[in-house]
């Protein structure tokens, strides 16, 4: 190494030392969104108890662990509470600071509406001296950031334009920690850890990647296996860059903006992949639920309640992840089944069962309660025989005896519920104090409109309470219909609101993935038997209803049959139904029309003749439609199978009685009539007759087979997977044979006629 180079590295080493000297971290202790409302009306999200310990304590402890020397906590709403918490804290407070050399500073800015504003404020106040770690106040992590920091510094020493290192964790795409809101897809250059494209959009079925990233390089990687840790290692350039561009509201905006302007400004973003460790943000109630469970099941080691992290409370750790503090009263028969964290001075009544739950300090739970998957904060009082499933009860809530809280209830501070109440799932209730806050704080409302999240409303409720209650809910969708057309994917507000339902990743991908894989082929050929089956059946049902409507129009309102054909054909394309299915469904619809007409006119069919007449009348009306569809032998065969399907299945369905029975009785007449009208050719009928009955079953439309059960029940869908039991098939075959018997006479006649024809021809 030349002397010059040596000198250079020496100097850089010094610089690195300087930068390392004071490692700063910025905690944005405001989420700037309302996922937790109404729980955040009285407390900032950072102070919400997570496993009986304020969320921000985890963040602070994590940062101290990483080796941060100075932590800046940036807060807006409830800043006083955060400041009070920090000041009074034995470790971080002014009087505290026992073992550590960590300085915690609370910065308050009332007029910040985004993370971008916060960083601009930080820039204005000139608080940043070197590289810093940017996190949010609801981060729970135990990862080792040293390699990421070292990589960042290494890059900074050679490339001053590397402004930010985004820390990500390698996880599988369906990992539970990947909250639907936080799905990221990075396009990266894996040779130098550069992020080339940042995508955070799950709403589309197809994801688009710019090809221009391949212009300068030969290979890029698209990664969907990364979990955004929400930890960003930023250089000193980041706050000024935020100041330069007021469009940057969040870190994601920033990353996107930097990448778009990469060519102009030359700034680059890098990523660092962690292969182990835990990181998650309690970005919504679902994540709150998930992270709480993870803490209890010790994924976030060393942040386990019994180890005194992060808050120094003492618990005894028992098997099945049960944590019990010393002073607690457990009545005889009280059962802490698994994954339970009890607060201090709790009183649990007789025969009460608790599982997968966190109970705060000073809670009193009566006898014979069941509490599952729920979070009770401090000072809650629960009566006897109460059942709470997946609920969040903020501090000071009271629930009277024998009340039931269905899944997903959220009770805000000091909400009292009377006895014997039944709370419907997903309801969020607020008490007087919260309502006061909502009413008194119009400026808060302003902010809401600005961030476009002013979509809550309150309605008075009762629930046998000794005080006034309001339910707090998302405004119905109609209010923001303007951007509805643009939204194709899941609505995050809605998703996070329904927090107790496991995250609907499926919503974004799977159900139609199979049909998807074929979509390209089917774009031009919409009649698609190759479409995914679920898809096809759902569609076919919808399509059937449309056919039904069209044909009803022809029979009842004398609509021109040609128009009906047009309608059917166009919806055929819209629903992607194959021609053969159309043929089957048309006939089916015609056969069901008399039945519906009979119902509407309260007419009872008393004889098979009556039914037959009715059917023939209708067929005569829709004859042009039939002629259009049943032109060749193949389509006629479809019709015949459908007819058979209908007759066979109709028979024992109570709801079709007596129409179905009469129809089946008049089967031969119907065959004859259709033959006479040239709808069914004789070869077709003979072919059908000669074919083995078990082959027929395969031709039946799957979704009619289980029609006897309710249309929404899963059993109807079950059939699609082809798992018609052998018994089902056997009974069907028997019925088909019976039907064949019924029309035997007619068929024999046909055969004779055919023979005569043949012999005639022979004579000629």
């Amino acid at each position, binding site marked *: 190494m030349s002397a010059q180079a040596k000198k250079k590295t020496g100097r850089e080493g010094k610089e690195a030392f300087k930068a390392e000297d004071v490692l700063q971290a910025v905690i944005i202790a405001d989420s700037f969104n309302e996922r937790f409302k109404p729980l955040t009306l009285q407390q900032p999200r950072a102070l919400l108890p997570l496993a009986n310990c304020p969320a921000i304590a985890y963040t602070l402890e994590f940062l101290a662990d990483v080796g941060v020397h100075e932590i800046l906590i940036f807060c807006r709403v409830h800043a006083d509470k955060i400041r009070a918490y920090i000041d009074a804290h034995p470790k971080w407070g002014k009087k505290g600071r026992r073992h550590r050399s960590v300085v915690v500073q609370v910065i308050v800015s009332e007029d910040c509406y985004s993370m971008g504003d916060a960083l601009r404020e930080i820039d204005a106040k000139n608080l940043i001296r070197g590289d810093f770690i940017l996190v949010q106040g609801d981060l729970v992590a135990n990862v080792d950031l040293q390699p990421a920091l070292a990589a960042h510094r290494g890059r900074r020493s050679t490339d001053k334009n590397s402004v930010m290192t985004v820390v990500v964790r390698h*996880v*599988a*795409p*369906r*990992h539970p920690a990947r909250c639907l809101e936080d799905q990221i*897809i990075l396009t990266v250059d*894996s040779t130098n850890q550069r992020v080339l494209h940042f995508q955070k959009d*799950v709403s*589309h*079925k*197809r*994801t*688009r*990647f*710019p*090809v*221009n990233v*391949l212009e300068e*390089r*030969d*290979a*890029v*990687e*698209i*990664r*969907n*296996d990364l979990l955004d840790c929400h930890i960003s290692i930023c250089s000193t350039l980041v706050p000024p860059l935020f100041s330069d561009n007021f469009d940057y509201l969040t870190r994601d905006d920033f990353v996107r903006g930097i990448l778009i302007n990469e060519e102009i400004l030359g700034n680059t973003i890098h990523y660092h992949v962690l292969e182990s460790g835990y990181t998650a943000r309690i970005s919504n109630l679902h994540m709150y639920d998930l992270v709480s469970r993870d803490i209890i099941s010790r994924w976030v080691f060393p942040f386990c309640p019994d180890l005194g992290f992060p808050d120094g409370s003492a618990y005894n750790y028992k098997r099945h992840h049960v944590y019990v503090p010393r002073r607690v009263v457990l009545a005889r028969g009280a059962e802490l089944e698994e994954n339970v964290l009890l607060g201090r001075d709790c009183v649990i009544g007789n025969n009460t069962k608790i599982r997968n739950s966190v109970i705060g300090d000073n809670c009193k739970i009566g006898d014979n309660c069941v509490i599952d998957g729920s979070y009770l904060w401090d000072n809650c009082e629960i009566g006897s025989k109460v059942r709470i499933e997946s609920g969040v009860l903020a501090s000071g809530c009271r629930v009277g005896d024998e009340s039931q809280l269905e899944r997903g209830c959220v009770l805000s501070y000091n909400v009292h519920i009377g006895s014997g109440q039944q709370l419907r799932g997903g309801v969020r209730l607020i008490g007087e104090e919260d309502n006061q806050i909502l009413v008194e704080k119009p400026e808060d409302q302003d902010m809401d409109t600005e961030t476009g999240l002013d979509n809550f409303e309150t309605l008075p409720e009762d629930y046998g309470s000794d005080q006034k209650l309001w339910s707090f809910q998302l405004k119905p969708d109609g209010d923001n219909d303007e951007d509805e057309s643009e939204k194709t994917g899941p609505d995050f507000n809605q998703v996070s609101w329904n927090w107790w339902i496991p995250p609907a990743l499926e919503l*974004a*991908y*799977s159900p139609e*993935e*199979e049909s*998807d*894989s*074929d979509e*390209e*082929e089917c774009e031009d*050929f919409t*009649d*698609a*038997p*190759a479409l*995914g*089956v679920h898809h*096809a059946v759902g569609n076919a049902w919808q399509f059937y209803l449309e056919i039904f409507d069209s044909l009803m129009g022809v029979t009842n309102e004398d609509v021109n049959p040609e128009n009906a054909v047009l309608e059917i054909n166009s919806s055929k394309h819209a629903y992607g139904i*194959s*021609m*053969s*299915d159309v043929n089957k469904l048309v006939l089916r619809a015609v056969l069901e029309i008399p039945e519906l007409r009979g119902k509407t006119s309260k007419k009872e069919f008393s004889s098979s003749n009556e039914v037959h007449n009715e059917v023939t009348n209708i067929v005569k009306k829709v004859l042009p439609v039939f002629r259009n569809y049943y032109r060749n032998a*193949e389509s006629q065969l479809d019709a015949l199978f459908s007819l058979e399907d209908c007759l066979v299945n109709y028979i024992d369905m109570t709801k079709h009685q007596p129409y179905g029975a009469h129809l089946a009785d008049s089967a031969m007449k119907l065959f004859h009539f259709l033959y006479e009208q040239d709808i069914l050719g004789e070869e077709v009928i003979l072919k059908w007759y000669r074919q083995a009955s078990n082959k027929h079953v*395969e*031709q039946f439309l*799957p979704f009619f087979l289980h029609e006897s059960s309710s249309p929404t029940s899963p059993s109807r869908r079950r059939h*699609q*997977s*082809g798992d018609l039991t052998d018994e089902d098939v056997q009974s069907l075959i028997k019925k088909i044979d019976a039907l064949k018997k019924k029309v035997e006479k007619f068929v024999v006649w046909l055969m004779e006629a055919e023979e005569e024809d043949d012999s005639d021809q022979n004579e000629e």
Partner: protein
Amino acid sequence: MMAFDKVEELQAVVLAAGASSPLEELISTPKSLLSVGRYPLIYYPLKWLQNNGFRRVLLVVSESTHQEISVAVSATSEIDIEIDYVTVPDDDDFGTADSIRTLHNKQKLHSDLLIIPCDIICDLNLQDVANVFRIHDASLAAVYHKTMSNENVIPGTKTKKQHDREIIGLEPVSNRLILSTSEADIDEYLEIRRYLLTRYPRISLRASLEDCHIYLLKKWVLDYLLADPNIGTVRSELIPKLIKKQHQSRSIDFELSNGRFAPSEQGHHADTDHLNRIAAEDNLDVLAREMSFFTDHNGDMEDPYFGNSIRCFAYVAPDESTCLRVKSVASFCEVNRQASKILQQLHPAKPGETKQTLSQIYTSANVHGKALVGQDSLIGEMTKIGEKVSVKRSVIGRNCTIGERSKITMSVIMDDVVIGEGCHIQGSIICSQAHIKLNAELKDCLVGQGYEVSEGSKFANDTLTDEDRLIEI
């Protein structure tokens, strides 16, 4: 033919019926007989197959070139491999897939196929490629190699460089071929379906790889070719279709083959349906896979390969290997420049033999003692090289005469070329029977068959052909 007791695992098919040649403007020789180094182009794939242990090869040739090719091949003493010629019509529309169908009709095919073009020059170990094919019980294994760099000047009239790199998406660990598209087909954005990203959370997009047109195909693909007569070519129709169709899951196949949605009259669907049914795997294979712990991915509970019965994989040739297709003037020059090196690799020195077998200069060639012939040049039989001639990085064919004091660098000179005294030829291709007269200077030029370059003329970046003659053709 019956001499083999065992059915071969792979049958090699060399497709040499293609009409287009990179030098078709200059010389009428069929592509497979263009001379590279000192052999016709067809020699290279055959030799490669021979080196990799093939004893038999199916060679598809067009009717018009059959004679010519078989003569040329049998003249090459080093090819010791049974060649089964199959002729196909000289029709431009008769694609490579049609050739494969012809092979089937003649009942030549009975196992999995290795399809290679006639213009490939490579030294890969075929074993490695076959292993990719075997490990995953793949339907298709395609060989990719790093695209040749375009640093060298291409002789002839300058044309605009086209931007048509192929973009392929690979799963980085298994090299599963997830998608393939061409840069020209994408406007600004590449669209990837969401579920593909879920299945393959890491997709490595490569733009620097070139399809070498070497394919290993399962036998059932043949059935598919027979079922769908619309597929004309292997490369541009069959392979993309396989790659696209592989992501369909088996449940649909099952459903379809169950006859619930019987193929309707639309031929199109019958076709989709067909592919799935044809690709259906052996029940025992499926059972074995279901019972084993093997999976090709992690992070979910899906079946290995997500239940896909069609699986396409890529074999990415190591950078240091040679794998070049002679498809353009540029690659023609490049292989000739590398000819002596490539020949060395194709002829591993056997014990007891000296490198003499690979002498650059045939003994029958007459090289003047004071001529300079560089180590990386090849001189053909009966060629006369005059005094003080310098030949560097060039290939000179048979029966050429090179006059005194001429300088030849980075060039390809075909057979029967006469070069006068004092010529300077650099970076050019001179086709057979051309005559370059005294003191001519050619730089980066293409000289057509039988063309005469007049005395003392100078050309650069030009294509010199006898246009009248071309029109006659």
